[in-house]
């Protein structure tokens, strides 16, 4: 997937972005026809940005964070606080939220990335919980404690109130930017270094690369994306709930990414769409949406760890194989059960402790 992406020509890239733009903008119009509502599209894009940035860390370097709620939440709280107490300027609100979230990400990256696998997952989870509990009690004068930040004014962009469709266009623009830059990063030498980290850190160290700094940078980038998504969420909801910092938010982005498929950039965004869409549809008929979500997640982890993207890839391979053996059979007039060219599995694996 990424290998293909690296070789894409500028023209194909332009076509890709144009198609993406059309889809992002059309989404609110499609939603009502498939059992959603217009604003659901905006929500999906916001979570899509979150998942996209998350993939740059987890999908590329293989470091699974359980603490990205921290950056989403800090972004949301900071921009919410600005809108609440200062001004309605959407761009300034975003700038503040993203800057603080990224700064915190750099700091936490330095602290947590000295360790691998399990250790890293636990430490990120713990630090995020620290922010959650800090917001809940000691900082409640600023964060509104249990109530979160309520009564945030509708943000404005050059005098235009960002509400409903305007908000959607605004978010769609950010999403396009996010996709564009993520794909540039994936294709850059920097992106190659990240994939090398996932593949073999020892080799990378011995190849003269300061692995730690690359990891911190990847962490900061994913924190920036999370912060951006969090600020957009605050702007969109005009409300910052305490859950923004809670581990369930970190868990949500993990679930979306797994269902969509880590390491594919577009997969986690699709995962965000699937999760939010199903939540919307199923919540109407059952109280047990979270249980269903958990079971779907387990299904993917157990049977299809590469997510929907791996599923699609397998389907495509299967189809091609059938096609190939069919044409082969035609050509030879017999039906040999031949193996076609081995295809590389989509998902990268590495054993890291």
């Amino acid at each position, binding site marked *: 997937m990424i*290998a293909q992406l*690296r*070789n894409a020509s500028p023209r194909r890239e332009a076509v890709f972005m144009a198609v993406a733009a059309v889809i992002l903008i059309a989404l609110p119009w499609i939603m009502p026809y498939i059992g959603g509502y217009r604003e659901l599209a905006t929500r999906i894009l916001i979570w899509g940005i979150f998942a996209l940035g998350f993939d740059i860390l987890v999908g590329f370097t293989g470091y699974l964070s359980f603490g990205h709620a921290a950056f989403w939440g800090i972004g949301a709280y900071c921009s919410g606080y600005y809108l609440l107490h200062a001004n309605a300027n959407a761009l300034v609100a975003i700038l503040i939220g993203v800057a603080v979230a990224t700064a915190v990400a750099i700091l936490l990256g330095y602290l947590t990335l000295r360790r691998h696998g399990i250790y890293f997952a636990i430490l990120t989870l713990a630090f995020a919980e620290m922010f959650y509990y800090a917001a809940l009690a000691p900082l409640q004068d600023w964060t509104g404690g249990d109530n979160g930040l309520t009564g945030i004014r509708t943000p404005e962009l050059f005098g235009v109130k960002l509400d409903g469709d305007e908000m959607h266009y605004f978010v769609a623009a950010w999403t396009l930017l996010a996709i564009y*830059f993520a794909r*540039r*990063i994936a*294709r*850059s*030498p*920097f992106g*190659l*270094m990240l*994939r*090398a980290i*996932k*593949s*073999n850190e*020892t*080799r*990378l*160290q*011995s*190849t*003269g*690369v*300061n*692995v730690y*700094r*690359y990891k911190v*940078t990847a962490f900061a*980038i994913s924190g920036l994306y999370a912060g951006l998504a969090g600020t957009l969420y605050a702007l969109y909801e005009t409300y910052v709930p305490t859950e923004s910092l809670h581990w369930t938010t970190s868990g949500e982005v993990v679930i979306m990414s797994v269902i969509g498929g880590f390491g594919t950039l577009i997969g986690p965004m699709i995962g965000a769409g699937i999760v939010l869409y199903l939540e919307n549809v199923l919540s109407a008929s059952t109280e047990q949406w979270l249980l269903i979500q958990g079971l779907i997640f387990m299904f993917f982890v157990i049977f299809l760890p590469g997510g929907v993207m791996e599923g699609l890839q397998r389907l495509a391979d299967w189809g091609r194989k059938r096609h190939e053996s069919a044409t082969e059979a035609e050509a030879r007039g017999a039906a040999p059960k031949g193996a076609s060219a*081995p295809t*590389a599995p989509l998902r*990268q*694996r*590495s054993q890291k402790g």
Partner: protein
Amino acid sequence: MALLDVGGVTKRFAGLTALDNVDLKVEAGSVHSIIGPNGAGKSTLLNVLTGSIKPDRGSVVFDGHGLVPLQPYEINQLGVARVFQSPEIFPELSLLDNVMVATFAARDGSYKLNLFEHPSRAGELRQFAEEVLVDVGLEEHLTMPAKHLSRGDKRRLELAVCLAHRPRLLLLDEPTAGMSQTETHSTVELLRKISATGMTKIIIEHDMEVVFSLSSRITVLHQGRVIADGPPAQIREDEAVQEAYLGGVHL
């Protein structure tokens, strides 16, 4: 002056002295072999040279730089590359990308925030990477993930990754281990070819045929201690060496 000067290096692991006051001088342009029975401390010595293990005592000086306090990546950037005992490559990356990582590291140093560099800008590096791959005999399947390679080919790839950096000192830990006769043969040929470029090498090897055909100097380690050091002809005659290898490999 020697390119590499190891002085009095000692390393203990929980009671076991893996390296005991080891001295080693490697001249520029030479092929220096380190031999010794299993567990003699050969790989540990390489670990000290590349910075992945810090010695308890002693100094390592490479071209005027003290290596002991440095990180592995800093040592590599100074021009010391290593082929590991069991091949360390990037299994999920394509052959070409394996080498590209090294070419980028050679061009950009240990870290560069080039987030948006377009792949088309790396055309020259790519060409160089392909050449290096051809040099080690891997000219096919350049876009195939490296994990599908045979063990021998993985080692060739690792060698290519090291060479892409144009190191001044190349460390090879048992480059022919686990290889068939023909693979061993072509590897020796390959190493000869590299030697012709004047690159300094340290080779750890159990295959004495390989050792004596390649080396300009040999150091023998036994239980963490240097028991002999000299040109191949002298080592062949050395009694302590015969003793250490008694029942082991025949010289």
